[in-house]
């Protein structure tokens, strides 16, 4: 397959696919043509540079590559629709931030930090949007569910992975339990690593 034709095909695919396409999905798609990963990567990089200054750009988000409009054009474009995009409440944003930055985390942890019970509506909204999911249980009495963010969360915020989240201060360590906290953090990283597959 000619590189030029491959480029056109990938471009077209990304514009018609219902959801972002990962490198693996593209590789599978072009398996009959024996397209190598190297070729794919090269073409994707070329496309990203082609669209650098255009009204739409090729972005790598959580679940893969997709074309999306420039953020600066949001105001002009949203005029197309009567409805205003939803604004999320401070409570929802704090809950989401806790799950995003401190995952995996239980509802109890969230309530402790926010000092307020987490409304079921907020958890429901976050799950319905597909931004959070249960990734396991903490092995303590009651086995509370552990929440983590999803690829859809990354997609929504145009992030490729969680490391792209703007930094916030590390959680302060509990004076006497410093060692334990470090331990927990280690486990968390391991857990989230397995969740991103």
């Amino acid at each position, binding site marked *: 397959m000619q590189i030029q034709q491959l480029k056109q095909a990938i471009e077209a695919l990304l514009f*018609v696919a219902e959801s972002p396409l990962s490198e693996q999905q593209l590789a599978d798609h072009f398996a009959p043509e024996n397209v190598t990963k190297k070729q794919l990567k090269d073409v994707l990089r070329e496309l990203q540079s082609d669209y650098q200054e255009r009204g739409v750009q090729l972005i790598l988000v959580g679940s893969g590559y997709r*074309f999306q409009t420039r*953020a600066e054009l949001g105001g002009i474009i949203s005029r197309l629709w009567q409805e205003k995009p939803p604004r999320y409440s401070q409570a929802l944003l704090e809950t989401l931030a*806790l799950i*995003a930055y401190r995952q995996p985390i239980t509802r109890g942890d969230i309530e402790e*930090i926010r000092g307020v019970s987490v409304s079921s509506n907020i958890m429901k909204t976050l799950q319905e949007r597909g931004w959070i999911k249960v990734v396991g249980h903490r092995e303590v009495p009651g086995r509370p569910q552990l929440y983590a963010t999803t690829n859809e969360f990354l997609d929504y915020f145009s992030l490729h992975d969680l490391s792209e989240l703007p930094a916030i201060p590390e959680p302060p360590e509990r004076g006497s339990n410093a060692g334990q906290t470090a331990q927990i953090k280690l486990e968390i990283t391991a857990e989230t690593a397995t969740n991103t597959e």
Partner: protein
Amino acid sequence: MSNADVTIAQQQSLPLGFVRGEPVIEKPEDLYIPPDALELILESFSGPMDLLLYLIRRQKLDIVDLPILPITKQYMEYVDMMKDLKLELAADYLVMAAMLAEIKSRMLLPRPPAEDEDEHDPRAELVRRLQEYEAIRQGAEHLDGMPQTGRDNFVAHAQTDAQELIEQQLPEVTLAELAVAFSQALAQAKLQNHHHVQREKLSTRERMSRILDLLQTKKRLRLSDIFEPKEGRAGVVVSFLAILELVKEALVEVTQVDAFSEIHVTNREQVYADSTT
């Protein structure tokens, strides 16, 4: 709500709360706030930690030096207002109030001089929680400020007529599956004792099919048409066996008009059809 009631925070990094997405901060206490507006302001706190953080920030104090006495007093004033307004969240705020009161009482108690102050500062746990809450508030602000799909950016799509080109896929079968299916069918037959299967060479059966097929198009075949010299002796034998088998099963008829004349193979159907006309 007008600007007379609320002003936008100027130098304080954390506003009192958000009202309709705008950061809001309270006016000095002596200024009259209409009850509606007050309710809005109080409701805009996302929880007791939010309120507490606001009170500390308002005094431009560091969280670490949590001034527990004045903060507790101010906090209680707000909670009382919330109780007056019967805000549903009051319960969570009361838990915090109890905690503040407890810390306050412990701080008022005389401490043995030997004790290590850092280790046993009753405010330590609350300070830790406030720091973590402050970090998370920052995270929430980051999230709110990040480009969001459907608000700031939109997924780009192009039209395609490629859907029309999707081919109807036919099921795939492998030879192995076929063989397994055959053995399964025979296993069924075994369960039914009355069935009788003849012993015969597969190639003979195939040749039988081919001859019958030829007879579909040509009504009669010369025997010599059926024998293919290039198949060699074995092929001729198979064809001959096939014809014999077909005759035996009364599927074809073999005719010869005169001795040593051409032998013809005719479809029994044909014979049947001819005889009825």
